């Protein structure tokens, strides 16, 4: 599979059709892979694709990561199904044009929940929960797919939520607040959750703005609550569920549970699945006159 992608990537770099191919290469220790930018055809030999490839590479296609400054006209990117969902969402939000990217897709067996858990193979014990009922293991939108792309039924529920979500939802409000308060005690606001996110696309994040400062910048618990609520709210109906925010968190705060909860709400209320269409408007920038309003007096 990866051989075919390497070959195609090499061919497109040689012909000059692509300026760069973003993919995964071996990392600095055996449990990890690392993003690589192949500019020369021979760089493609370094490409790998397996269960360790956790990074959501479309983050590099986000304008705030200096993407436009590099002057690439056409970028190749290797995507797992969920990554391609992120690209689709970026296009739906006008952050990217479809003809700026060339998507190499491949069947994905799932990825490890955290590189730390990699023991040489992918199995039930270390596979990320987002992969357990994934309907884009055969990716949706690709420019290159090794072999024949089978038809897949994607009408089912959209990503099964992590078991931890159910645990939290069952708690009392007070207990849930206490749980987050205790977990947020560890947060030191490194903003890894923001930086790895393919959809955090503001040039200046609201938390970095000072006039006015809506979110306390200091990492006391109040400020941490403010930040994570803001982040979650800004991703409602946009998050494509790659789970990188949790995976990247150096102190293991499962912030993507907020996003997963919102994903369920959006799907139930507005029947919207982010990352499946470039044309359908994300739910919070549109409306129906007969939207649900049971909560309104």
């Amino acid at each position, binding site marked *: 599979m990866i051989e075919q992608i390497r070959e195609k990537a090499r061919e497109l770099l040689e012909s000059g059709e692509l300026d760069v191919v973003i993919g995964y290469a071996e990392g600095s220790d055996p449990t990890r892979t690392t993003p690589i930018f192949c500019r020369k055809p021979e760089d493609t030999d370094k490409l790998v694709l397996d269960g360790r490839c956790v990074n959501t590479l479309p983050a590099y296609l986000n304008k705030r990561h200096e993407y436009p400054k590099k002057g690439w006209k056409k970028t190749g990117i290797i995507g797992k199904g969920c990554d391609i969902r992120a690209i689709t969402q970026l296009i739906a939000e006008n952050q990217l044009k479809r003809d700026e990217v060339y998507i190499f897709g491949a069947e994905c067996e799932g990825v490890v929940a955290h590189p730390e858990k990699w023991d040489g193979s992918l199995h039930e014990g270390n596979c990320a929960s987002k992969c357990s009922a994934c309907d884009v293991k055969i990716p949706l939108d690709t420019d290159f797919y090794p072999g024949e792309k089978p038809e897949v039924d994607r009408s089912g529920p959209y990503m099964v939520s992590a078991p931890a979500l159910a645990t939290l939802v069952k708690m009392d*409000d*007070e207990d849930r607040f206490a749980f987050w308060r205790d977990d947020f005690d560890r947060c030191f606001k490194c903003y890894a959750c923001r930086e790895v996110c393919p959809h955090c696309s503001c040039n200046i994040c609201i938390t970095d703005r000072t006039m006015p400062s809506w979110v306390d910048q200091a990492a006391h618990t*109040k400020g941490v609550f*403010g930040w994570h609520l803001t982040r979650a*709210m800004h991703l*409602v*109906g946009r998050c494509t569920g790659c789970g990188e925010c949790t995976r990247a968190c150096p102190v293991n705060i499962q912030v993507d549970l907020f996003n997963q909860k*919102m994903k369920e709400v959006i799907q139930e*209320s507005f029947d919207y699945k982010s990352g499946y269409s470039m044309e359908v408007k994300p739910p919070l920038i549109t409306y129906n006159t007969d939207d649900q309003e049971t*909560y309104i007096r």
Partner: protein
Amino acid sequence: MSKGIVRHDFEPKIMGFVCKWCTYSGADLAGTSRMDYSPHVRMVRLPCSGRIDPQFVIKAFEQGADGVIISGCHPGDCHYNEGNYYARRRNLAFRNLMEFNGIDIKRLEFSWISAAEAIKFTQIIDKFTNQVRDLGPNEGYRALLDPYASRLVKSSEESAA
């Protein structure tokens, strides 16, 4: 005319974010008609319920509000045609988010009140105030309100004296 004064152990702090075309005018009407309603709501007037960023509500809770009320024009009545439709979707999501965060969702109220509905306005304010009063102080956030109080020693005024 006035209701009898009842003393409570706890009087809640409530923030109101309201649309100026309808709810704020409704409140005006309630005032000019000399209607009685609970005095706990501190009202912020905004051009449209669509302008009410969830950020305002988060900030209100952070600053010690026990309840927050958001109010705008009835669907179809928006001065800007569609602002309240956006607000309706956004707040549906936001309520769920706050609930998942561990805030009792009874502390967050959303209502449609037109400029003519002074009575509805007073009823909703009274009802919501009682509801929040029954819930008691928003202990979770109140505990975070002043993170450094225990670190202070003396003021420059005291040391000069």
